[in-house]
């Protein structure tokens, strides 16, 4: 891919999928600065991976695959070398209407908090499903069978329900 064409494609990808990547990152990292670093790392990975995109899967699934791998590495590094955690759960919503906004933000914060309390294996499945990926797409991303995705996702959803009810 030519340099100019690659940059233009990348700019479109960031505009279209940037919020999705930000959401995805937020479910794996609480600290705002670390989250921004992780998001940068993911975007760099997307930039590096774009020339190899052949359209076998949807672009969204392809990008989520890159994000997923980078998040996995990030989480494991954090487990190996934990740093001082400065919690930062700020969320901003671009939707209009202050009342609706307040309600929505509360729901979002609750959902995010419940997600973050799920074990990582379940969290990744729920987040991918929340992003609208089909079972077969999730199976391709993780390298497990579609049946296995169904079973694990059901368990993960039940765990999420429990977490949400506790809040």
């Amino acid at each position, binding site marked *: 891919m030519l340099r100019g064409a690659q940059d233009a494609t990348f700019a479109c990808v960031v505009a279209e999928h940037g919020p999705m990547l930000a959401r995805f990152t937020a479910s794996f990292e609480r600290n705002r600065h670390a989250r921004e670093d992780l998001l940068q790392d993911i975007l760099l990975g997307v930039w590096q991976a774009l020339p190899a995109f052949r359209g076998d899967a949807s672009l969204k699934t392809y990008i989520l695959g890159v994000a997923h791998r980078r998040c996995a590495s990030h989480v494991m590094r954090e487990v190996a070398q934990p740093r001082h955690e400065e919690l930062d759960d700020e969320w901003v919503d671009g*939707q209009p209407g202050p009342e609706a906004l307040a309600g929505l933000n509360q729901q979002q914060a609750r959902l995010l908090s419940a997600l973050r309390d799920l074990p990582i294996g379940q969290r990744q499945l729920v987040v991918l499903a929340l992003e609208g990926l089909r079972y077969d797409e999730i199976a391709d991303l993780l390298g497990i069978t579609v049946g296995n995705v169904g079973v694990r996702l059901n368990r993960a959803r039940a765990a999420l329900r429990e977490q949400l009810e506790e809040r």
Partner: protein
Amino acid sequence: MNEQDKWANLQDVWGASRPASAVPDVGLMIARARRERRLTVLVLVGEWVMMIVAAVLVAERWQRVATNGYETLWLGFQTLLMGVIIVVYTWTRLAALHEPAGTSLRDWLALRRRRARLGLRLARFTRWTTVALLPAPVIVLVMARSTQAGITGLVTTTLVLGAGWWWAQRKRAHMNAEIAEVDALALEWLDEPPGPSGQTSRA
């Protein structure tokens, strides 16, 4: 509200959300990545040029070299070692320039594990060849044509062997940590316990 409606509601809430961190400007990172890529390619080209020059020099002086059994062995070994290292590392560094495309998490972990094992094998090879070559500095000293050449050869060979040993130790520790991380990832993210093939090597 049934389960499907609840899930759809959660998806709406999730999809409408935007974390406070804005999408960062990655222009600088991309520029840096481009520079690093260019540098890597230049280093690789330089290494191959050096390798070819070395091979040509050996071929040109083959008559003289072939008359000395030890020197033949030594040069053959060096060329072989350089060839192995350059070929393996050209491939590894070129692969590292690209994000693996279209691979699942499982495949990606398998790729990382394979690369780490390859690195571990290379470290082991370097370590054992260093042990085998321990007499080399003394032989170089004994066979030198002058005292100065002998001392220079002794110091150079010792430094090369020491650096090889140090590099192999570091590489081994790094690759063992990499394999341990991959195993932990597989366990945590895919519920995949590390089998005998996933064990950290104690090479």
